[in-house]
Every structure is written in C-alpha cells, then in structure tokens.
C-alpha cells in the first residue's frame, strides 16, 4: 500500500461522496458545485493514474466549461427552489462542502509536493501531453475530425434552439426576458 495507493483511495472516497451529495441535493446550485468538486477530485485521480492531459482537460472541459454552463443556465432560469434555507440548517449545508474541499486540497498538495524519489511511481509520466497529442493526431485523426463536426453541430443546434426559443420567449411563463 504505497503512498499513492492511499491517495487513490482517498480521492475515490472524495469522488464518491461528492457525487452522491451532488445527485441528492434539492437545490440545483448545490448539486452543481458538489459535482465541480467531484470533477476536481477526478482530475487529480487522472493525474495520479498517469494521464496528465486528460486530467487537465477534466478541469478545463468538465469542471470549467460544462459545469459553468450549468451554472449559467440555472442562474439564467432563476429557478426559485432551495433559496429559503433557514439558519438552523446552515451548518448541515456548509459542513460537507468544507470538509470535502479541504480533503481534495490536501490530496492535491500531497500529490504535487511528493518527495523527489516518487517519480518512478509515476512510470506513466512519460505519457506526457505532447506524446499523447502526437499519438492522438497520428492514430485517431479521423476521430478528431468527427468530434470537431460534432462540436460544430452542437454549436449550430444550440444557436438554432436559442433563436427559435426567442420567438417562443414571448409566451414564456415567467417573463424571463429574451436573453439568448
């Protein structure tokens, strides 16, 4: 049971806890934030498992892009539920995120400041982002092109739905306003 094994199980626990909490929250905002936390832990896990580029992308795409998009949408829609949390439950609301956040930071700190001799524990460190990038564009160029089409389609779809949603906006129930 090496140090990294310990870190792995810690991170696994954090991910499971955070996801469990995220998926059971009544308030959408809390769910999203918990999930962001879970994705951070996952990013560290990727790094631990010798996949630095996916770890970075995990943070950029999942936590950064998708969850932020969720936040925008939730705020855009101004969903009312969960706002009238009274004080006495505040502790129960705040305690888990603080504890999880702290645990994630600790694991991250340990990982980064690992003793010099630990390099060999990460044989996969060779899977540097450059190698992975060259490998992806060498073997899976078709896949990349396909994903680009997919992304473009997603963009077009979102734009179209946004625009047509606009006309329908006039009939929107809560007069949210025509923000795209």
């Amino acid at each position, binding site marked *: 049971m*090496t140090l*990294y094994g310990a870190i*792995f*199980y810690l991170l*696994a626990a954090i*991910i*499971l806890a955070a*996801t469990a909490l*995220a*998926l059971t929250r009544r308030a*959408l905002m809390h*769910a999203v934030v918990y*999930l962001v936390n879970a*994705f951070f832990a*996952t990013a560290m*896990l*990727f790094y*631990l*498992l*010798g*996949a630095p*580029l*996916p770890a970075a*992308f*995990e943070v950029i*795409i*999942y936590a950064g892009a*998708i969850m932020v*998009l*969720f936040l925008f*949408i*939730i705020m855009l*829609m101004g*969903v009312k539920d969960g706002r009238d949390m009274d004080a006495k439950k505040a502790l129960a609301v705040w305690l888990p995120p603080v504890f999880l956040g702290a645990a994630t930071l600790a694991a991250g700190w340990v990982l980064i400041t690992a003793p010099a001799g630990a390099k060999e*524990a990460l044989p*996969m460190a060779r*899977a540097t982002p450059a*190698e*992975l990038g060259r490998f*992806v564009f060498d*073997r*899976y160029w078709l*896949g990349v092109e396909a*994903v680009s089409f*997919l*992304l473009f*389609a*997603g*963009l077009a779809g*979102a734009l*179209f*739905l*946004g625009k*047509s*949603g606009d006309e*329908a906006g006039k*009939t*929107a*129930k*809560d007069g949210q306003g025509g923000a795209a």
Partner: protein
Amino acid sequence: MIVPLEHILLLAFILFLMGAVCALARRNLVMILLGLEVMLNAAGIAFVGASLRWMEMDGQAFVLFIMGVAAAEIAVGLALLVYCWRRSGSLDVNVFSRLKG
C-alpha cells in the same frame, strides 16, 4: 500499477450506477443531465484505468473523445432545456410527454 485495475473499475462502476440512478429517479431535467455527466465521467475513469494497466495511450486518447462528445451533447442538451423551459415554464420532465403513445 499503483492500485489493482479491479478497484478502478469498481469505482467507475459505482459512479456510473449513481449517475444512472440519478438520471432515472430525478424528475428535474437539470439533474438528469448531471446524472448523464457523471456516467460519462465514470466511463472516462475506466478508460484511464485501463490505459494505465496495459500501458497503451489509446485509453487516454479515447477519454478526449468522450469529453468532446460530452461537451457537444451538453450544449445541445442545455439549449433544449432552455427551449423547453421557455415553452412550458417548468423543468419537470413529466410535463414533456406530448409524444406519449
């Protein structure tokens, strides 16, 4: 191999299960999409674990693709969500049943 592959796969499986249960059980459209994200993420973990186990970079390459697909999918998903929200004013998934049998 710092951790036996089975443990990683177990983690991925549990995460996938939680995502699936959330997508099934929750009635709010946003939560369903979140559940979906968790499932995709669980797949990513499994791929990375496998990539580590067999020393092949294909796994990690695939994770990138997963993320690409997830991004595109969530863009359209959320656009649809806003569209439905605009049209019917509620996010309860059972309201959208006009295609019912």
